[in-house]
């Protein structure tokens, strides 16, 4: 079985570092970017099995990034990381109305839980 490939875009270095370790331990191929612009420029469409975007990004919102990605890749699964409850709520009711709630992972999250959620999303 091919290893699943996951892309994480989050401006917090610590988080991406830890996530990368967690995911790689579970045998996922993980790319991480802290800068959304760079992430976008280096994005490989249809390559990843899952893209995880943090909603709170510098310069560009997670949703914006998502839209940009969707322009060049309309098949890859995308899920979102949120830390702020408010943000979460807001987005849930506005931009992400039609989205499956399971696509939103709230930080902080235990490693186990994170993995489970990721697997679930990818299985859908």
């Amino acid at each position: 079985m091919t290893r699943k490939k996951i892309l994480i875009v989050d401006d917090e270095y610590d988080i991406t570092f830890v996530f990368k370790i967690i995911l790689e331990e579970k045998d996922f191929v993980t790319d991480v970017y802290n800068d959304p612009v760079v992430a976008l420029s280096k994005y490989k469409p249809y390559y990843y099995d899952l893209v995880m975007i943090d909603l709170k990004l510098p310069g560009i919102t997670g949703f914006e990034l998502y839209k940009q990605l969707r322009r060049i890749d309309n098949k890859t699964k995308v899920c979102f990381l949120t830390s702020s409850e408010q943000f979460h709520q807001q987005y849930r009711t506005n931009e992400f109305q039609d989205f499956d709630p399971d696509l939103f992972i709230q930080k902080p999250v235990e490693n186990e839980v994170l993995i489970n959620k990721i697997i679930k999303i990818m299985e859908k």
Partner: protein
Amino acid sequence: MINPLREPLGNSKLSIVMGISIIVIVIIDLLMTRQLLDYNHITGNIMFILTIVICYGIGSVVLLGFAHKVSRELRNKSHLSHLMHWTVIMVQFGMLITLIFMLFFGNPGYILSRSIFAISSLLATAIMIVITFKFFSWYRASKYKNPIVLFYALAALTLACSIFEDASTKLLMVQIIYEEPALDNQITGSSFQYKGSDKYDGQVVFVESNTDGTALFVIPQTYLDLYNYLNSIILPGGFVFRWIASSMLLRNVYKKIGTLPISLWIIISLPLVLYLIGKMPGFFSGESLAGIDEAYRYYFRVLFRVGTIAGNILFGLAFFVVAKKLKSSKVRDYLVLAGLGDTIVGISLSTSAIEPTFGVAAHSLVLLSTYLFTLGLYSSAIRVSQEMKLRQSIRDSAIEESKLLVGIGSAQIAQEIEKKVFAVVEKEKAELTRDTGLQPTFTDLDTKEYLNSVLKEIKIIHNIEDIISKSRDILLDSRDFILCTRPSGLRLAYNNYFEICQQICRAKKMGAHNGIKIVTSITDSNDIEIVNKFLVLGISIRHVKNLPPISFAASEKEMIATIQKTEGGQLIQNLLTTNETAYIEHFSSIFNELWTNGIDSRNRINDIETGTDNEGIEIIQNPETFERILHGLIISSKEEIVGIFSTPNAFRRSKFAGSLKLIRERLETTNLNVRILVPEDELIYQTINELEDQGISNRIKIRLIEPSMQTKVSIVVIDKKYSLAVELKDDSKNTISEAIGLVTYSNSKSTVLSYYSIIESLWKQAELYKQLQLHERMHKEFINTAAHELRTPIQPILGAVDILRNNASSIREKELIEIVSRNARRLKKLAEDILDVTKIEGYTLNLNKEIFRIRDIILDNIHNYEANFEKSKMEFKFNEVDEVQIFADKSGVSRVISNLINNSMKFLPSTGGFISITVKQTKTAMDNKIGNMVQVSITDNGSGIDNEILPKLFTKFVTKSFHGIGLGLFISKSIVEAHGGKIWAENNRVGQGATLSFVLPLDNTDQNNKTYTP
């Protein structure tokens, strides 16, 4: 040149004598023509001669001469009168000549008699029509429609008709048939027959036979009915109307004396009765009385004629009686004339003119009599109206003059008035004479008499002396004395009877008098000065702000009141004095009212002297007065207006009434600052925005009051000097007038400043409250932000620690890692709890409901805990009694369960602890409804819950454990109750530990999906 004839001609006595003579003659003539007096050729001629001489000769001369004199001015003015007069004179003269001719030369073909008859009747009719018109126009023109006038009008009309009818029927219907003198018993004579005759086919009325032949006056059968019919309707009609008019006139005259006695009524009614009875049977059969027995005919005729004569005399008498009552001699004369005319006309009309000698002569007197009647009435009418005019002008004159001559003295005034009025009257008289041609008969004596009566009506006493002396008298004679007057009146009293006041006060001390009480109005130092003079004597004096316009003084016996008026630039005092109890009581009660509402004069004086006299509190009962005062105060405000409105509507009403506009205008010219407190409302926000847009929101500040702090009174304080407190009566009304109740106005420092400080403290309070809310909000936001920020670093810690744990080698490392992990989790929990609390308290606990199985989240939680805690520590048991699906906030319910488990875990024993979770469906009563619920119970075998804490268990920050900040159960309660459920805790009855349970409604309808408010 003195005309020797003029005197007797002008003498009314002579006229009366002649009149009576004429009447007598005519009566005899009547009786003879109506078969009541027999006559023969000789007596007939005698009567003829008498009639000519007395009626047409002397009588006409005297009466016409009188009329001539009387009507001089009238004739000069009126063309018609002139014409009438001379026509009558000429015709009468002509008739005289003709009659004399007839006497000596006979009456061939009866032409002469018939012409006389025709002419006199026609002219008489014309004259009667003139007077009829006059009567009708008088009736129409009069303000108070006098029925007497109307009836006279009708009487005149019917009389005119009668004269005309009589002449026309007799001249046109009666045929004269001549017979040859072949009859045997040829008598020179004539007689009235009234017998039907077949030979001549009609009724033979009259037969005259002489040597030349016989003339028969016949009414043809064909005309007979019509003839009788006309005679029967018109003549009696006239009689009846004249009777009515005359009796009404008589009644009017005697009205002043009293009702007429019955005897008089009988006398008056008798002629009418006789007339009607006499006429009745033969009503339509005319003179023949065909339907009656021969024997009785005579008597009926008698009755009828007596009635006629008596009636006519009565009619004339009516005028005579009225004339006697009148003062004016001239009018008397005219009425006598009219009376004579009235009598004569009736009687002569009844005389049958078919008799060619005396009959015609008597009948033709209708001309003279109608003329006298007309002239008499017309002249008297004019005269009376002139006199009325004069009376009116005297009256007006008197009033006019008395106004101008105040202060000279009453006697002087009376003299002056008389003089002036006489002058006016003379002028008027001259004018009237010029206008109507008749000289007014008002003499100077009449004027004086009338003037006095007018003056009495006005009740003028202008003399100040009178007023003073009257007051003095009342005072001297009193036991109680009350006085209500302005200080000017007091000064008058002081100047004139101060000693008496002193006397009375001494008497009071000795108990002989009840004392003097005075009510007055004190406004300045002059007033104080005079009031003090009375106060020194020990008299009680009180001050009222508004004195009545009447100054009055009263003892228990008598009172005096003076009314001051300014008229025509002069000050007039009218005096009323009476000892009528009703008046005294009335004024006493007015005094008492003033007394009770008055304030002691000493206090008032004190106030004035210390300058605090203007202060007070007033109750304003008229809403419009309030608006006026408020606007006035706003317009004159200079520094500051503060106010509090009871309701938003009050503000709306005030804005609508223009107060805000006035304030804005005021802002432009002064340093005015305005602060307003209003309860929250859309309009207020709008207004605030408007003010901001206009850039004046720093000068008109509006602060909002909590709705719970609304009052029912609006208060405004202007410049810290004036206050208005307005009660709200009905907030639903749209205008101030309808919405407000009582208003109190004050300019008293203590009141105004109290209100000011109340509003000031409310103002500060509003500010503080706003600040407080702001701080709270900021505070909450800070916590929120902080909590969020807290979560971010937790993630890497948790994550890294987990990784490390897996790679830990030594036990020590494992333990250290465990420590870090645990604490990181605690931090996470803490952050979440804080965030939850802020959510709850910030009213933003939104539930995102979905359908899920309870068991799922329970198992999730169990797994979670099992993954993170060493299994040896405790055991989880899941007891699913019912499998239940629920429509709820999944993460919320999960939180609750997690919190409860957490809570239990804190009290578990170190080993052998277990937590058992039970899920079952129940029916519970919630809010008066039985609903389906799912109950989740979490039981532990820990140390149980302290009884101290049990009641406070689900509140914030209550914990006996060493861990956590005590928010968990509070949050759980909030979430459960937001679903419409309930949460509770109890210690286990069996064994150790406690059970925490909650229920959540299963039916959607029971759940309130609204924002939770604690």
